[in-house]
């Protein structure tokens, strides 16, 4: 009967129910979009780090992110690293901003990612056209199809000018987006070097350790040997890149702030409507009390009302969020929805509604059953 009464109380006043559901829906969509974008941005920032087969990253001292390097490391550091116990391989990786001059004029900034697949470090992922073998061809690069317009190209075979040389698109990736909005352009290590006119420099060294090696111990050993370079675990470098782009630039704070604001607005709207609903049904709650119901019984009715609102509001909100997810797929900043985020959003909705119910519960706690004789 608790659920029946809660359900009837809610659906009795459909306008108020609609306001409640719109409040929850607005809140859930806003939080889902903000957190979905946050996750999307996080994935974009760390995608290359996550796909690299490295236990440790050697960077120049103070490197803030994957894109923030020069070509300041040399083969000297590589040899020092290779001589360190526990190190199996040290793979050079070039990551550097460059100017992409479009075939029909104009230019845009890109991030050149140069590495050799044979080394087993980082190779372009999500290839949908062409292979790594195609990228080995003279002048070959791989770009993401999302950025065709920005790069002024239409597909395989198109050419452009980067720094010192010409490049030709030989492979295409899908969904490899850049948080900096400078498209990643994958090529071989040597071509990257030749484009920048540097025969030895590199941005990172990806360190692979021998099986069973203590990675922390190898890290400390490398730190002792390499002056002016930092040695980070994959997780440390990941965190550093996320901090740089999401928190130092304020982008992440804005997204999380939006999510918090959404939760707050949703809570206030639901609290207001639940409170007014409880106020309208106060006489009925007083009757229940006079009939001998415990306070707990009445709290359960109010919480059930909040719970029903949460479930219906969540179902509507997540449906709209999923539509936005699909629509955002081909944009520069696609939203991400994971089962974990969906579950977290549900928990948030239920929590939000439960908190909203508090004001109504406080109101009903003060109820005087004697009012039943004055109705």
């Amino acid at each position, binding site marked *: *009967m608790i659920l029946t009464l809660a359900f009837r109380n809610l659906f009795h006043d459909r306008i108020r129910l609609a306001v409640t559901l719109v409040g929850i829906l607005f809140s859930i969509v806003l939080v889902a979009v903000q957190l979905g974008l946050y996750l999307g941005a996080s994935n974009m920032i760390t995608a290359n780090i996550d796909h690299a087969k490295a236990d440790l990253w050697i960077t120049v001292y103070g490197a803030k992110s994957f894109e923030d390097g020069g070509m300041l490391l040399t083969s000297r550091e590589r040899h020092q690293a290779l001589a360190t116990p526990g190190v199996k391989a040290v793979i050079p990786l070039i990551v550097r901003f460059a100017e992409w001059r479009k075939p029909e004029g104009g230019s845009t900034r890109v991030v050149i990612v140069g590495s050799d697949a044979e080394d087993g470090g980082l190779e372009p992922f999500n290839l949908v056209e062409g292979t790594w073998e195609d990228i080995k061809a003279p002048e070959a690069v791989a770009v993401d199809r999302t950025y065709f317009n920005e790069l002024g190209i239409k597909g395989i075979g198109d050419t452009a000018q980067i720094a010192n040389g010409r490049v030709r698109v030989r492979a295409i990736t899908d969904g490899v987006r850049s948080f900096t909005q400078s498209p990643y352009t994958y090529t071989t290590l040597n071509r990257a070097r030749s484009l920048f006119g540097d025969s030895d420099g590199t941005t990172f060294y990806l360190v692979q350790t021998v099986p069973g090696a203590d990675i922390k111990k190898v890290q400390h050993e490398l730190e002792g040997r390499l002056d002016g370079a930092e040695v980070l675990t994959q997780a440390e470098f990941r965190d550093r890149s996320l901090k740089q782009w999401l928190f130092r630039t304020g982008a992440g704070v804005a997204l999380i702030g939006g999510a918090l604001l959404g939760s707050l607005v949703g809570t206030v709207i639901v609290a207001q409507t639940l409170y007014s609903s409880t106020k309208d049904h106060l*006489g009925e709650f007083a009757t229940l009390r*006079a*009939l*001998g119901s415990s306070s707990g019984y009445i709290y359960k009715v109010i919480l059930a009302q909040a719970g029903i609102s949460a479930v219906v509001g969540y179902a509507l909100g997540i449906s709209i969020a999923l539509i936005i997810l699909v629509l955002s797929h081909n944009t520069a900043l696609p939203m991400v929805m994971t089962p974990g985020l969906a579950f977290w959003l549900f928990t948030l909705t239920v929590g939000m509604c439960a908190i909203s119910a508090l004001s109504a519960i406080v109101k009903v706690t003060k109820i005087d*059953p*004697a009012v039943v*004789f004055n109705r």
Partner: protein
Amino acid sequence: MSDQPQPVLEAIDIVKELGSGAGKVRAVKGASIKLIPGELTLLMGPSGSGKTTLLSILGCILSPTSGTLRVAGTSTDRLNSEELADLRRKHMGFIFQSYNLFPTLTALENVRIALDVRGQKGFAAANRSEEVLRDVGLAYRLKSYPGNLSGGEQQRVAVARAIASSPSIVLADEPTAALDGENGHAVMALLARIAKEQHRSVLAVTHDPRTLSYADRVVRIEDGRIVGEERRPEGLDAPEIADLTKRRKAHA
């Protein structure tokens, strides 16, 4: 040993002050009353005489300022609001002047909710609700909402709700006030039947003279004090009492 049946509710020297400071009013001034199983007692008095306040105290809804209230042998002194609710749940059923039905629940559900708060759920509760609604003559209105019921029907749903859990005490506040003559008589006849056949103590607060003929006992209250008590002569049933009342009125 006395043959007098044990009272199921006993109030001794009840005083109730309402308000505070200069606005303080003594609404009940030392009232004592006993409710006996199988009796329909009327608490009668003019408006403002304190009858509803006394009913609220007897129903453990208001606490007396002083005096003793015992329900089924349990003193209500020092009981908190949850314990008082528990006492109401176990021993009392209420009928209100304005019926106080839940407008969003059907007649059947309105009765079921009174069982639900007592922890009686499922088919047993549904069957019992249907049974009492049939008993008050509403078998054909089980799924009707209060808005679709007449005043008399609504009050009968309220009576069914009050008796569904088989409480030993039924307290009614002006049960006929909002009803026309025919429905008023029907509800009073129902209350009298509940008292007699189900051996419950029924106390109805009223100032409706139409109800007199159904009473086993009439307790009169004026200005917060019990000023008199009349008992129906032994051997007379309700219709005979009604005739007697008519004859007395004609003679007067």
